[in-house]
């Protein structure tokens, strides 16, 4: 099957924070299943896109949700006028055709769902389609990548130990201030000074993590704020819209954040 629609044609902007590009390339070379950890909005998804482009492999992304069944990943029989036809799920598609399959927020999926990837993530590299009575051998180019945010999931939602131990992991965090400023200017078009101020503001909210905030402002949020500024919205207002209001409903925290933002500019 032609996976052209899944290939990443133009270079996504990604600014490496460490040696994660080399690490991922090495992992891909031995087709090691990878787990990307890190807070929301720090660039995990962008990184996978970038790597798919760099490795020139198609990328199939599945956003996992709690009602997702194994059939949603693997595929199912569908009916048509003449009979039944098998329809490959996104995972099977990637396995057959040698794509990178990226399962975003895997913990959201039910635990029995994540078990179907087990046979793909050890040296067997096979996917068994029980309903179809078929065993699919993974294409040599196939790799599985999952993302996993250890922060905000409750204790109830965690990966099984047997799943965790099948992956290599790269830990992501918000980039260093200079890098982050570069990213913000590139993505939004604001000047470096505004970007630096935004990062200072983000650090203020990241200080409150664990004191009423589950997460501080992410790079993605900063880009949103910067985009508003680039469209002519005053900084304080842009921050209110993009950084303060979405993140908390607690009036005291909002007040503290807004005042801290006022101090930064």
């Amino acid at each position, binding site marked *: 099957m032609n996976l052209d629609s899944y290939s990443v044609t133009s270079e996504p902007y990604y600014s490496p924070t460490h040696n994660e590009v080399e690490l991922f390339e090495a992992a891909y070379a031995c087709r090691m299943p990878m787990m990307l950890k890190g807070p929301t909005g720090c660039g995990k998804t962008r990184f996978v896109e970038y790597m798919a482009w760099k490795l020139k492999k198609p990328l199939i992304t599945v956003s996992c949700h709690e*009602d997702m*069944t194994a*059939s949603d990943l693997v595929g*199912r*029989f*569908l*009916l048509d006028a003449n*009979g*039944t036809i098998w329809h490959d799920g996104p995972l099977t598609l990637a396995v057959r055709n040698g794509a990178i399959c990226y399962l975003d927020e895997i913990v959201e999926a039910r635990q029995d769902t994540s078990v179907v990837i087990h046979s793909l993530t050890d040296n067997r590299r096979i996917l068994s389609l029980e*309903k179809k009575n078929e065993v699919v051998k993974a294409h040599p180019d196939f790799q599985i990548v999952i993302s996993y945010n250890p922060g905000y999931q*409750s*204790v*109830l939602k965690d990966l099984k130990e047997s799943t965790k131990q099948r992956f290599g992991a790269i830990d992501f965090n918000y980039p260093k201030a200079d890098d982050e400023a570069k990213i913000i200017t590139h993505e939004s078009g604001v000047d470096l000074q505004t970007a630096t101020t935004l990062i*200072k503001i983000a650090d*203020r*909210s990241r*200080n*409150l993590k*664990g*004191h*009423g905030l589950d997460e501080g402002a992410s790079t993605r949020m900063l880009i949103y704020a910067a985009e508003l500024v680039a469209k002519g919205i005053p900084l304080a207002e842009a921050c209110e819209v993009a950084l303060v209001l979405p993140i908390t409903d607690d009036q*005291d*925290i909002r*007040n*503290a*954040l807004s*005042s*801290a*933002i*006022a*101090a*930064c*500019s």
Partner: protein
Amino acid sequence: MSTTSTRGKYSVFPQNKVNEDVKQEQQILIQQGKKEFSKEYIPHWTLACDKLASAGYGAVIPLSYIRHSPKLVKHLNAEAAINLASVVSLAAIKVNRAAAEMLPKVAVIAAHDTKSMAGFITWINVIEELIKIAPESVLPVLERTQKILKTLTPDQFKSWVLAGLRSTGDDTLRQIQYFSFADPESEKWFRHEAGDIVYTDLERKLKLYLLALWNLQPPIRDLPPSLSPLSARRITISNGVVQVPEVFTGYHGVKAEQIFRAGLAHVGAHLKYSKTKFKLGKLKPIQVTLVSLLEDARIEHLAMQEYPGLRNLWLPFHEAKADGPQIIPLLLARLTRALIDKDYHDGNGWVQKGREMFFHPDNDFMDANMCRRIGSLLGNDLGQLRAQFNAKTYVIEPPYRDDNMGLWDFGDNQENEEDDKGIFIEATQMNKEESDDATQDDKNNQENEETEKQYHARESEEKDRKQSNVIVRYPEYDYLTGEERPNWSCIIEYFPEFGDSNKIARILETHTDLVTRITKLIQTAKVSLPERLHYQNVGESLDLDACINASINLRTGQIPDPRIYSTTERKHRDLSVLVLLDISNSTNDMVKNTQSSILELEIQATALLAYAMSELNDPFAISAFCSDSKEDVHYYRIKNFNSNYNSTAQAYLAGLRGKLSTRLGTAMRHGVKDLKSQHTHRRLMLVISDGEPSDIDVDDRSYLVEDARKVVRSLSRLGIDVFCVGLEKGAENYLNRIFGRKNYTLVNNLSALPARLTNLYFRLTA
């Protein structure tokens, strides 16, 4: 004044002569007074006057009434004037002549200030209550009526009086202190009622601000308001603790919030940039003041480089003008402004010199010694002006800045010499320890406690080894005012005593039949978030996968699976429970026909329940409470949510002893902090109590009941269920009132409690 002249006559003239004079004066005044009343009220008023005159209170009281009460007609109406007589009479009987004499005069003032009949009635009712409950305090209140009513409305006055009565209990001396403003509490509540913004109103916001801006969490305490207007309070930093005035006098509304914020931003800058203490050396007081001033400017300069927006926060408080007499405090204020405000022009040579020296390009702003050097020189210059400077009366301006006592090493304290790290570093280190602590516990709700812990760590070692470090204050609801009084009652966590942990095992052994039943129940107990079940025989929706399979089977000639529905079910248990045990003194009572006390049965019941909960893997915590006045509500953690139900917890449970009283609301407020942080679908607080909420400093039976009711209602808003097991006969009334009809059960046969409690638990959580 004629009253004093009348009094004077007592000593000079013979008795009958005096009586005649007084009567004459009374008659004259009555005739004058009558003019104020309309016809139908005159007989009533004269009757009231006659009653007072003939009641044997002496001459002065009736005279005062006759003289002043007609004025009430003008302000309010005739009835107010006539009714006043009964209160005057009451005051004469219950309090003393002085108060009774003063009352009519003060009533006129009150009538003028309250402006409305309703307001006046509120005021006079409060006075009447006060006469009955705390007669000794009536005079101080009357004397201050004008001051009080200038600031407070009659309703606020009522709240303030109630706060006084509630906080002082039966202690007459403390009552008098409160009502004569000799007790700092009094001023604090006065400000609170007056609607002034006090530090405690903003505490959380400001702490979060400090954390966000500087990533600092120093322990912050409030300074009680100063009683003398001379000693204006400033923020002070000492021994690593930041003390903030409860209120900045003269700042209201937004401005009040701004000054607290400016103050804490300034404190943050100190903690960040004032790394070493200055040695006092041979500096003169004016030089010390100047070095402090320059240091303030230096750290603010650095802070504003980092956070330019702080300038907008600080600048409005710098109000010095470039003209005016050359007295030192004014010059200091002008220099202060010149160092922060670029647009400020000052023709004074000394101020200009100070500014030039401070901003000299060779200065290294990271080095505090520049302040010492410049401060010494500028101080010498001021000395040549021969102007007076009194360091003792000098108060740092603008008011958001701290008193800078923490900047100096006075050399008189051994501790200081040994530890040259400086106070600010101490504070920052403390903050580090705190954050380490916080990573272990759930951080969200611990902020307060963590700082409290640090602050009290030293004190508690000396004081009471049994007392843990957690001291937290909670509001309490007063149904009479319909409002919560902030920071009213105080929880102190004590370490529970060890008992015999084998006792718990023995309890399980003696109740084998119960334990087996519990085990069976455990196996069937289910409670949780709904989960979708596929391939069901019955269900509310079609299961797509199953339908397709069935169709495929039909087409391929096989027998289709009829299970084509999906449904939802709660499968896993997902609840956490806090068991709150009342261990007040009354639990020591023996239960009829048994060898056990109520507490003994509580422990047995809890032991069985804890067994069930731990077998079910339900997260649970057990705490016990009793109280000894609002300032000392004991709270014992038997088991925490994150600790195991092990022999330590069991020994704690076995070691409980009944004592003191039952301040239920406060204990529930404290317990809920833990429960709130549990991420389960259901959260349940199970209260086991043997009696009505009560405490030694509360004689109003409804007060604590209404407070507890308020807590229960606020919990239900948080999605936390509260259920109470009552152990007292005839407790329906108040349990119904507190928890609501469906949320309590009464166990009349106490010996059945252990069995009942666990059953109840399964029923509640099924």
